[in-house]
Structures are given as structure tokens and as C-alpha cells.
């Protein structure tokens, strides 16, 4: 979202993946829900957790950490949430480890991705880094979590299904 004017604030939903804090523009987020029962989908890419029923609508849920390439099994806890975003005309759910708060962040506190960024998240997904009194939050561009190319590969049949359940 580039329409905010200079000097304005954006509201950022803070969520955690592991110990790292991320943020997403509240305007890109439709809602945040608890993790319901998820129906796995065979032959889908491994970061696709499956499908859920959101008030009568079936939507795909991905594991955001796996999407970013985080290795290893991670347990879902009672703090786990699904962030629902609207992509094109579809809703997509993203599982995160916790959603502790919503912050107001002045636009000028968000630096466009500096070279020295150490996050393991690919730069394509990052909108900027918010520096809030020493607390560094990676602001993601949630609409780009599935870029066109990835969407295509999602659709392609993936024969080698990893057992990640």
C-alpha cells in the first residue's frame, strides 16, 4: 500500500514466527482467527497446510514460516493464529505463532529494506523495517506472500509430497 502520505501513521498488526517479530499493514488483513481444524490437501506444496471453513467459505491456509523456508517441525500452540488476507479475489489464511498486538507506526520510521538486513525472510516479501526504539520489526507486504510465480507453482501437481503432518 503506497497511498499513505508522508508523515502519516500506519497501523501494523504484529505477529510472531518463532522469536522474530513481523508486522503487516492492517489494511491488508481481513481478519485474524484462531486455528480451526485444517483439512490437509494431498499433493499440495509443503507449506500449504490445507483448507479451513471460514463461515461457509473454503480457504487455503499456508504456514508462513514454512513459506519463508524455516526448517523443522513446529508445534501449533494455543497462541497460534491464522491471519486472513485477501489476495486478488481469494482469501488466504496464514498461520503465525502469535499475534500479540497492533501498533501505530509512523511512516517515516519505516526504512525501505536496508542492505544489511539479517532476516531469513526473502527480501521480495519485505516492505520495510520499522525501528521502534531499538525494537526491529520486519514489515511484510502480505499481498506478495504468494507472488504470481509461486501461485503458479502452487497449482502445479507436486508428486513428491512430504510428510509434514
Amino acid at each position, binding site marked *: 500500500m503506497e497511498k499513505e502520505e508522508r508523515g502519516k501513521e500506519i497501523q501494523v498488526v504484529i505477529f510472531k514466527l518463532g522469536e522474530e517479530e513481523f508486522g503487516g499493514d492492517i489494511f491488508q488483513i481481513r481478519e485474524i482467527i484462531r486455528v480451526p481444524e485444517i483439512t*490437509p490437501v494431498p499433493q499440495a506444496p509443503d507449506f500449504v497446510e490445507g483448507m479451513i*471453513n471460514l463461515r461457509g467459505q473454503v480457504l487455503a491456509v499456508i504456514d508462513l514460516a514454512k513459506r519463508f523456508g524455516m526448517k523443522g517441525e513446529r508445534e501449533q500452540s494455543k497462541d497460534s493464529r491464522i491471519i486472513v488476507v485477501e489476495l486478488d479475489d481469494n482469501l488466504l489464511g496464514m498461520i503465525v505463532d502469535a499475534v500479540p498486538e497492533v501498533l501505530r507506526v509512523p511512516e517515516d520510521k519505516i526504512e525501505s529494506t536496508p542492505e544489511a538486513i539479517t532476516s531469513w525472510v526473502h527480501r521480495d516479501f519485505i516492505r520495510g523495517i520499522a525501528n521502534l526504539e531499538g525494537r526491529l520489526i520486519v514489515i511484510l507486504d502480505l499481498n506478495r506472500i504468494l507472488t504470481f510465480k509461486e501461485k503458479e507453482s502452487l497449482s*502445479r501437481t507436486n508428486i513428491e509430497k512430504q510428510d509434514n503432518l
Partner: protein
Amino acid sequence: MEFSQYKELFIGESEEIISSLNNNLVNLESNPSDLSLLQEIFRLIHTLKGMAATMGYQRMSTLAHALETLLDVLRRGVIEADKEIMDKLFQGVDKFSQIIEVIKKGEEESSVEIEDLIETLKDINVGDIKTGIKPTEVGGGFEERRVLRLDEEDRKMIKESLEKGEKTYQVTLAIERESLLKQARAFTALSVAQDMGKIIKPHYIANQIKQEKFGRLVVFFLTSKHTPEEIRNKLVLVPEIEKVDVKILDINLLLPLKKEKETEKKETETLKVSQTIRVKVNHLDNLMNLIGELVIDKTRLIEISRSLEDKVLSDTISRLNNLISALQDEMIVLRLVPLAYIFGHFPRMMRDIAAREAKEIDFIIEGEDIGVDRTVLDEINEPLIHLLRNAVSHGVESPAVRKAKGKKERGTIRLKAAREKNYVAIEVSDDGKGINIDNLKKVAVEKGFFTQSEVERMKDEDILNVIFLPGFSTKEKSSFVSGRGVGMDVVKDKVTALGGTVHIETKEERGTKVTIRLPVNMAIIEVLLVRVGKYIYCLPLVSIIEIIKISKNEVKKIDNTEVVNYRGTVLPIIRLEEKFGAVGRLLTSTLEEEKETVSYQDDGLSVVVAESAGKVAGLVVDKLIGQQDIVVKNLPSALRKIKGIGGATILGKGEVVLVLDLNSLIS
């Protein structure tokens, strides 16, 4: 209501009108003197004119007015719609479509050029004869039009001359555009004509010319004993006369006076169309989802009331249950749209394709009133267009070839829809050359789809299915219409995605028939719930032939494929568990409670025998849970292309369950 909403309405209604205009024009082309058709076309254009004017689309209404004027001449039987006029009418309707497209994009209608067409229309709009109507009735833009009244006296005169063996001609003179002496030339021509016979209403014509109430066309009626050629040859000698057309006038075509009133009455009657409102499809989708939710909650309520055993509560809930069922039925009907909605575009399209390919066809549509779900309708349009194009360009032969074969010169292409329970079967058939199986086999081998020995063993109907394979086309040269890289494989993919099947039959020299079977109602289908391992899947009932029980040692292996003997034939079996790596919906306690319809001992296998596109296979399942009507939800777009998964549904307690796509699993 916002202006933009009016605009949407306007666009929708205009598109409908344009579509029926096209159909009526195609009909008119073969029945140029059909008065009811002309009336209908006039009415449609008139409606369009009114709508465009209300919306402020000046150019559109101007063009409509010009066409209306021409139609008025036609419907009064003065002139018949010949090829030139038909072309103009079609061009006019195409301009409307263009303008609508432009408006849709939010651009100005002025980007569509209409002046040339209007100019040529002026050349046609001539000699308007109105029986018993005041000559002053001429309006906007076409003042140069002359109006001639034929009264009883004129009729009498024409009748008398006919009895004398003379003929009545409609003479049209075109004076050169650059001529500075149009009046003088017109008078000279008139006097030349006068020498050969009698001009009907000579004073009126002369007056009109005197007052310069004509463009460069003069039309008059002449009774004469001369032949058309003689008249023509004389008139053409007049200087600066560019063109002379002499046509025998069929006096019967001139409408008798009293019919005028009847037509007026008819016009008012047709205005009383049934009351409809337009609703956006996504509102219907939302409504559908909400009803789906309601059904789920209803199921919960029923369970609760059972446990509470309260008479009042259970009565109320049973009533609620009936209401919701009624609501569901109504919803299904709401989403049904008659096939005519897309079929309506085809006659015009077929006319154009046939003209381009120099083929002569009769195009017959049957069953267009059958309703199908809106989603199906949108998706089926493209495959049908492809099949119809194929029928014209690859099916029907050219008139000369047909004649040489002893066939009727005009080919017949039939588009037929019929309801078969919850399915609609749409057939596209032609009486063309059919498909040469030997040739097909040859190409299949050449292109490496099969080996020579394979094709030799294949049955004709099996080899026909090669047409649906991607990258297969027997016609090397891509023609203007059927080329474009869209093949039969696309047709098949589309139909399959909709849960339907495609079947092709052909007889050499007799023609080809392609049948598409589609669920009428996309949303609700009957499925068999099965358990495989720990997971539940839905199998669409329509593809299931039967459920058999076999013992484990009946399974044999041929070329790494597991097969069983099924009624004397070899039935390949598919183990869903292996195929899907045991992923799906876990069996929850709810479903455990469901009544089991069939259950087998450990030593046996339950095999669901299913058929798709002529292929039969057995699916091994662990348990048959039951049969159920489900609301199919589209998969999230990102997951839509996974082979074997056709959709998802939400069961009674809100669980998401996968619906298998048996077509892609089997083939």
C-alpha cells in the same frame, strides 16, 4: 441508485437486445418478408434508441434512429431486405456492440465511428411509403427522405395496370454525388420514365424534387409494359445518373391500410414483458453461502433438539427445516439461467463463420430454454464456440464438394440441449465429412501418441479420444477461426473442470456429434462419502457404476498396474491411499456415528467402480460411509489444479472434506 448502477443496467440490457437483434437478423436473412420479424427488430432498435437517449449516449441513439428509419421502410414492405441492406443492418448492430464495449471500458462513445454507416444508410433510406400516414411525420436527421402515400386510388391504378399485363416497378436512381444539377437531372430522368409508363403520384414526386427534399437518390413507382432492362437502359443515358435500379414491385407486399392498427396494438402488447430485476452474481453467491451456513446450523439444532426431547422445540425446528429446504430449492432456481442466454449469440456467429469459410449451413438450435447454473453457463460458452467453429470449418464441406458427394449443398449443424435428470446434455452435430479413423490413427502414430501396434489394437471409440489429448490436431493448417491454438483438449479440460464429460461419435461422410454432459446445478451434487485410511473423501455419484467386493487375492498385476477381473473385463484398480499419500480429512466422531451403508470384513476390498469418458476403473476404499447431497465449494484458486481433487465441501459440523475428481483420477 447511482448513475453507474444505471449504466450497468443499461449495458446488461443493451447486450441482451443486441443479442436478440442478431438472432432476428439472421432469421430475417432467410425470410426477408417476414413481417413479425421486422416488427420485432424495429421494436428492439426502438427500445435501444430510447435507452441510449435516456443515458445520454447520443451517437448510439442517432445510429439507432437511422436504423429504425430503414427498418420502418422495410416493415412497410416498400423494399425487401436484400443483401446490401442486411449487411448494413448487421454493421449497425456491430456498431452497437462496439459502443457498448467502449462504454464498458469507461471510455467515450465518440471513439466509435458511425458517420460512414449513417451516410450509407441515408442512401438506402429512400422513398418511404407510408400507407395513410401524414407525410409530415418524418423526423430527425433524415429530412431529405420523401414520403409517399399510396391511397386507394393508387392501388386501383396499379391493379388496373397489372390486369393490362403491365408491371409495376420500383425505380431507384442514384445521381452522382458531385452533381451540381441534381434537381435538373432528377427531372430529366422522371420525364424519360414518364415516356415509358405511368409514374405513381407524379406531382408529389416532382414537388419533392422541386423542394430539394432528396439526397442523391430518387425513388418512384412506375407502371409500364416495358421490361426492367429496357427501363434501365433508357434511364442510364441521362447524364450524371450513376446507378439505376429497377425492381418489380410486389404489390402484395404493400401493407393494406387496416393492418396499421393491428401492428400498433401488437407493439403495446409486447411492451408488457414480465417483470424482472437484475442482480449481481456475487450477491447470489453470497446468498448461496449463507444458506449453506444455515443448513449446517440447522443440522446442529436438530441434534440439540433430539437430545433435549422437547416437543415444542422439535416442532419448531421441523418447521424451520422445511423452510430452509424451500429456501434452498428457491436459491437453486434463482441461479438457473436459460441456455438461450449464450445460445443467443450463436446464430450470428455461425452466419459469419460460414460466410468467411464459404460454406452454406442451416443452423438449428434446440432446447435453449433449459436452465443451467450461472457458473456452468459462463464456463461452457467458450467450449461450445470451439465445437461449433469446428463443425463449420472441419465438419461441413464446401457446397461444391457436398454436391459432388450427392449431399444437400447446405450442411446442417445442430446444437441441441436436453435435460437428463440432474444433467444437461448439449450436443453439437453436423452432417459433414466426419472423421476418418484410419487417418486419425496415422496421425496419432506420427505424432508419437501411440505406437503402430497400439493403434491397431485400439477400438475406434478409443482412438477417437486421442482428439482430446493436448497438442493433437489433424488439421495442420490453422484456419482463421478454428486455429488459434485452442484445441479439443481445452474443451475437455473446461468440461471436466465443471464435473462434466465429453463424448465424440463420428461416421465417415455422415458427420460428427460431440456430446457434452454437465451438471445442471454446479453447487449441489450427490456424493458417496468414503473413508480411505484415516481420511474421508467425497466421490461424485454420477461417475459411480457400482460398488463391488473382492477378496485381496483376486488382485493381479499386469505391467505394474493392479487389476481385477470385473464381469469378464480387466479393471485397473487405483489405491487412493497410495495416490494421495494418506492425506485428507480425518475421520471425526461425527462421521463415525453415521450409519454405515456397506461394510466389509478385513479379508476383502471394497472397490468403487467408476466410469469417466468411457474409461472404467476401480477405486479401493476402506469403508463406505454413506450417500449425501453436498454443496460443492470451489477450491481456493491456488489449489485448483491439483490432479484428482475437484473441490471441497463442508459437512454437517463444519468440517472441510475433499471432493475427488474421478475424471482426472481415472484417465
